[in-house]
């Protein structure tokens, strides 16, 4: 990471200083960063071939073969470094003179593991002028840390533990209502896991006086896909918008000036979402996840071809609610290829949508088991979704609802002191109980 950071530090200087050939240095930097990411991230693709090749020319690789240890957070660091080089090239930012400050931009530990993806022009000045500690900042940052821990330990980890691992491997063993419940639970696992992580690191960084970008803003209440991507993994969405979508749109408009031309209409969102899928991992199912979101964004924009854009806030409440439910349902479907390989995803979808997969709940069987007349056996065979999942889902949704309804993630700090104290006591109790079940589940986005 030090080498990658130092190379980019010098590249930034050269781009900034060069009278001509700036573009060449920029491209060298982009290729260097992308190539480094490809070497580490997609080593599974080429290492088996490399071992065969080395064996062919008589080089032994030993019993363990070749293993590359991927630098932590490389995917996040790569996009940050590309944005730095592009901004220096576009004269939006002067190259950073201090090596130490620049390396801190790369290695800053609260954002190293899984972001947020910070822009150098916003992050670097904060290193010179950290915010002083005040009663308000301490309260806000502790709120972030506590809500982050609640999201991760109470919501994400507990929901994750309630989904049987085999559900995402052999989905056709279960009825549709079970699959739907687990998919719903998974949607809240991935959201609370990542939002929890971001909230914790923002709180830690805030205590240092260095505020990090907010990455989530109650995304499951979005009423359109454009709104969803403005609320989900915001730092990556903004990066994709500024460094893929806008440049792609501009380049296409130069060739085909008509904005509503089918190429201008389809390609930029599709390419952007495909890059998003590839950034998460090079697999067909992740590309499908990206292209699904690309397709959602394209279809959603079609009415704007003949009618002026409708402002969501001006629509009646019932229409907003229907739009939110519709958006959430399609986002939920897109999580299927995100979570599993293509063949399993196909089976999961079939298990979910075929009417024959909806099975009658076995209440009678369940009551016989409770009376002790039958052995417990496979509880999933009762076709009754685990009620404990809903016991966790309801507070998870309520937490988001409170933040969404008041348009303020620190809404709790405005509530009466006794309510805050009661909620904090409840949170501490919950976290204490959850700590017994701590299985040290890693953060999902750590894997990207």
């Amino acid at each position: 990471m030090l080498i990658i950071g130092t190379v980019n530090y010098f590249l930034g200087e050269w781009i900034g200083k060069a009278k001509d050939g700036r573009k060449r240095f920029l491209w060298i930097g982009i290729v260097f960063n992308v190539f480094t990411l490809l070497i580490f991230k997609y080593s599974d693709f080429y290492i088996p071939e490399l071992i065969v090749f080395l064996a062919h020319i008589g080089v032994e690789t030993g019993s363990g073969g070749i293993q590359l240890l991927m630098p932590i957070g490389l995917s996040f660091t790569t996009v940050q470094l590309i944005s730095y080089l592009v901004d220096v090239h576009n004269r939006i930012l002067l190259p950073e003179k201090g090596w130490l400050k620049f390396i801190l931009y790369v290695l800053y530990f609260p954002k190293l593991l899984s972001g947020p993806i910070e822009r150098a022009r916003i992050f670097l000045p904060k290193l010179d002028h950290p915010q002083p500690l005040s009663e308000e900042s301490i309260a806000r940052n502790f709120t972030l840390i506590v809500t982050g821990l609640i999201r991760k330990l109470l919501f994400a980890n507990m929901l994750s533990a309630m989904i049987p691992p085999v559900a995402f491997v052999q989905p056709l063993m279960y009825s549709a209502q079970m699959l739907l419940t687990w998919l719903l639970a998974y949607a809240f696992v991935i959201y609370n896991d990542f939002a929890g992580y971001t909230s914790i690191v923002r709180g830690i960084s805030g205590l240092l006086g260095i505020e990090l970008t907010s990455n989530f803003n109650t995304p499951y209440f979005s009423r359109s896909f454009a709104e969803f991507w403005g609320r989900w993994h915001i730092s990556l969405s903004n990066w994709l918008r500024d460094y893929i979508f806008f440049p792609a749109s501009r380049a296409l408009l130069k060739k085909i000036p008509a904005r509503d031309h089918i190429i201008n209409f389809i390609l930029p969102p599709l390419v952007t979402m495909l890059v998003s899928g590839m950034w998460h991992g090079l697999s067909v199912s992740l590309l499908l996840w990206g292209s699904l979101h690309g397709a959602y964004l394209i279809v959603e924009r079609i009415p704007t071809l003949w009618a002026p854009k409708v402002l969501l806030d001006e629509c009646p409440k019932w229409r907003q609610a229907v739009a939110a439910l519709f958006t959430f349902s399609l986002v939920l479907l897109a999580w299927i290829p995100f979570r599993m390989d293509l063949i399993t995803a196909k089976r999961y979808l079939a298990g979910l949508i075929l009417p024959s997969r909806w099975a009658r709940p076995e209440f009678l069987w369940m009551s016989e088991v409770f009376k002790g007349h039958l052995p417990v056996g496979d509880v999933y065979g009762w076709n009754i979704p685990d009620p404990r999942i809903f016991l966790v889902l309801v507070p998870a949704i309520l937490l988001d609802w409170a933040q969404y309804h008041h348009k303020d993630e620190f809404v709790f700090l405005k509530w009466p002191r006794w309510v805050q104290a009661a909620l904090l006591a409840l949170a501490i109790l919950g976290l204490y109980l959850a700590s017994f079940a701590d299985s040290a589940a890693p953060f999902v986005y750590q894997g990207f």
Partner: protein
Amino acid sequence: MNITTLSFAAFVDIVVVGYRLFPARFRNIWLFVACLGFLAAWS
């Protein structure tokens, strides 16, 4: 609660207290040392 979680909490406490106590010109060096420590521990 496991030793990794507790160690990370202690690490954060030390980094925050140290950062706030050091004079401004040493703060970035302190952060750099903390980041190297984090990387080393993670590795």
